[in-house]
């Protein structure tokens, strides 16, 4: 794909994805995984997960952060600008138009039904991607990583622990594992 085509694809992919991300940062990340990993093959699965962790831990909207990371990776500075522009246009346009008659929109029964239906679809998209990623992670059969996965799930789902602390905790396990390995390697 030529450089220009790449930038255009990046821009329009982020534009469409941003126009359909109901319900927070993880939705956009799952759609990006389907697009950039499964469909275009521009990133591998691990890179997408790394980018999700970084997008989540850095300040700002997760969607914008993820767009910046993918943009740089795919096409450098122009890629980053194309991806971010694509991401910010839909909210800018939709909210600007809606702000004129938002009362009508917010109280409308039909709009509410359509949105309720779309939420069912969004839940399906997230769980579909989560299942694929989870099965892939379980393939490695690395016990410690599976424990981290289970602990992270329990921490966020049952105990409502802030995501930042979960990411810091997983990073700490990674550092500890690396240090232990180094120590083990030094032994004669």
């Amino acid at each position, binding site marked *: 794909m030529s450089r220009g085509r790449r930038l255009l694809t990046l821009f329009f992919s982020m534009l469409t994805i*941003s*126009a*359909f*991300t*109901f*319900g*927070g*940062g*993880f939705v956009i*990340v*799952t*759609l990006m995984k389907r697009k950039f990993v499964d469909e275009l093959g521009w990133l591998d699965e*691990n890179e997408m*997960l*790394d980018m999700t*962790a*970084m997008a*989540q831990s850095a*300040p*700002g*909207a997760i*969607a*914008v*952060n993820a767009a*910046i*990371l993918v943009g740089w990776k795919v096409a450098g500075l122009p890629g*980053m600008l194309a991806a971010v522009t694509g991401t*910010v246009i839909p*909210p800018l346009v*939709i*909210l600007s138009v*809606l*702000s004129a008659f938002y009362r009508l929109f917010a109280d409308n029964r039909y709009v509410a*039904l*359509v949105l*309720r*239906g*779309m939420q*069912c*679809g*969004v*839940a399906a*998209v*997230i*769980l579909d991607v*989560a*299942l694929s*990623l989870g099965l892939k992670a379980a393939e490695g059969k690395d016990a410690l990583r599976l424990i*981290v*996965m289970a602990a*992270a*799930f329990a921490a*966020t789902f049952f105990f409502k622990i802030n*995501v930042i602390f*979960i*990411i810091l905790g997983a990073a700490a396990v*990674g*550092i500890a594992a*690396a240090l232990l*390995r180094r120590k083990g390697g030094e032994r004669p």
Partner: protein
Amino acid sequence: MILWQLFLSFAQIGLFSIGGGYAAIPLIQSQAVEIHGWLTAEQFLDLATIAEMTPGPIALNAASFVGIQVAGIAGAVIATLGCVLPSLVIVSALSWVYGRYRRLPLLQSVLDFLRPAVVALIAAAGINMLLQVACGGRALNGFRPVPALLFAAAFLALRRFKCSPILVMLLCGAAGLVLGLAVDGGM
């Protein structure tokens, strides 16, 4: 002057909201309602409702909404720019570090353990959303079969038939409207 003020306020919101939309809401409230009086408390509630109902990050939705009320289209554009500027700087730096140092054994090990944690976070977000649509929250006695079936159909379409996610979401929206009107209290 007002544009500069908008830019600064939303740059602060972008800089201090770590962890996505729900962290941004109180910051937006403090800047737009309490400090500058750009929105009334009631308008802020409207904003929170619309931000939830429309696509896109909450912080960007708020930037457009507040910007256009205060200073028209230019206001919306400037507030949006302010909101993304901190991300542009910080995440670009992060991207550089990642590109350069991801092969280091220490960072490799950190990433090895971050990935399963991220998978768990995505799964939890999906299950929470499913509980929300199928049970109206976490109480299982609020179970509603119609949204649950719609979810099951969507999941099947994605997994078995590899349908495009955006197509699935659009079809679900249409199905929601039809089923909601056909089945009394179904959705």
